[in-house]
């Protein structure tokens, strides 16, 4: 039998005044999640992580069921093995780059200290941040911060990866090179990843498919080409026509 490697979710939740109702499945691909502000994109990521309570949920990552309200299953965030890079990266400000990565690797592992240290060095090498190892994270540039956040999240070999606006905190100059780097990283990844973005160009470049979320629901989910051929809402139309005025107005 073929191994299931995707991510399947059927979530309904009430967070504040927002009602989230999402059912979707994906393979080990990159899915872009786009939509206006307040549509519940970040909330959906937090629901997947188990950091917010669901009314009803059925979430399967690979072959593992991490939430199923029918059987009262709710795996805590700590045991879901989902990599998460929030907006602005949430690096630990009191730790150095090396300590940030080491914090992740030491959190679950009962391995020997020397072995973990080797893994930390390898993770730093892989993401080209070995030279920054002893720097405090607050003095890093946006692009460097993103590399630290990615290496920290991926060093644990998560079963899925969630990125919340990974490029929005960057200035235009570093944006392009960081985007290339992110694209390369996502291509080499063999787990389902969800990338939240506001930017149509980023969505087109990063995502094999794009899910449009509006007021808590997925209104359309397809490839970029299909979305532009047949936009089902005013937002999708504005989004794919590149004018992007709706999203910019919100920002």
């Amino acid at each position, binding site marked *: 039998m073929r191994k299931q490697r995707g991510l399947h979710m059927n979530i309904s939740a009430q967070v504040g005044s927002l009602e989230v109702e999402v059912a979707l499945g994906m393979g080990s691909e990159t899915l872009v999640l786009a939509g206006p502000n307040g549509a519940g994109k970040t909330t959906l990521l*937090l629901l997947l992580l188990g950091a917010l309570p669901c009314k009803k949920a059925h979430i399967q990552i690979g072959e593992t069921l991490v939430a199923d309200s029918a059987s009262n299953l709710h795996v805590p965030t700590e045991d879901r093995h989902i*990599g*998460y890079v*929030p907006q602005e990266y*949430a690096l*630990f*400000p009191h730790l150095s780059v090396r300590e940030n990565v080491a914090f992740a690797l030491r*959190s679950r592992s009962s391995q020997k200290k020397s072995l973990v240290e080797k893994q930390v060095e390898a993770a730093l090498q892989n993401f080209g941040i070995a030279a920054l190892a002893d720097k405090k994270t607050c003095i890093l540039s946006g692009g460097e911060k993103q590399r630290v956040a990615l290496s920290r999240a991926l060093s644990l070999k998560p079963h899925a990866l969630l990125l919340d606006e990974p490029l929005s905190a960057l200035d235009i100059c570093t944006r392009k090179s960081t985007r290339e780097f992110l694209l390369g990283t996502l291509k080499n990844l063999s787990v389902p990843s969800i990338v939240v973005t506001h930017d149509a160009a980023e969505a087109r470049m990063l995502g094999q498919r794009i899910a449009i979320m509006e007021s808590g629901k997925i209104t359309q989910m397809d490839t970029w080409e299909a979305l532009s051929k047949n936009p089902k809402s005013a937002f999708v139309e504005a989004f794919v026509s590149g004018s992007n005025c709706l999203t910019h107005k919100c920002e």
Partner: protein
Amino acid sequence: MRLKFQKYILHAVGFSLAAFLMFPVLALFVASAPHGLLAGLQHPLVWPALRLSIFTTSSSLLVVVLLGTPLAWSLAQSKRTTGQLVETLLQLPLVIPPSVAGIAMLLAFGSRGLLGALVHPMGTSAFTTAAVVMAQVFVSAPLFIQSASSAFRRMDSKLIVVAQTFGASPFRIFFRVALPLALPGLAAGAALSWSRALGEFGATLMFAGNLEGKTQTLPLAIYTAFQTDIGAAQAISIILVLVAFALLLLVKVFMKKAEKNP
């Protein structure tokens, strides 16, 4: 001209209150004591009271910080409504009059209080140094809890979620993430709560009595000395003002640091 004049009036009105607040403090330092301040410091009440104050306030501070930090963390993590309700209740000792606190302590832990049999199994007197520490904890802990829980709340909640995705245990998150990041706020709270414990008078007097060397802290010594030797009372007061001022500066420094790296 008219605009300027009105501005001056506003300044003058405000200044009058500032002057009223500062003048008594100034008077403490400039009014001459009957036989000099140094003689006042040599009054037999001073040193035992100073020793006792240092011992009891450091004990109460230790209790407040050790138990108050996990409490503040739980409050900061709890749901907004329940957390706020509990927090408001815990602020009560701050606003009730000290004499009421004293009565409440007596009714709860006094030798004839609700838990009297538990606290004083041999029927010992309630007037002990331990009672002083208890009174200080009661009145000073809320200040620490308030400032510590707001320090924990100021922290970026995403840091906690991210640490959880790594599989970090609650202990690991508390000790390695929350505690280091909230440290300036905790220190400010500790300084505030220490200054409150140092000045504690009413509840101590009612609950622990005024026994020299045993329950007579500096504020109680001022009260006793005041009846016979105002010079000694003034000397002790000056010590307390200086210590309080130093603590206030410390609080300001820590607060600034806490706001800088939230």
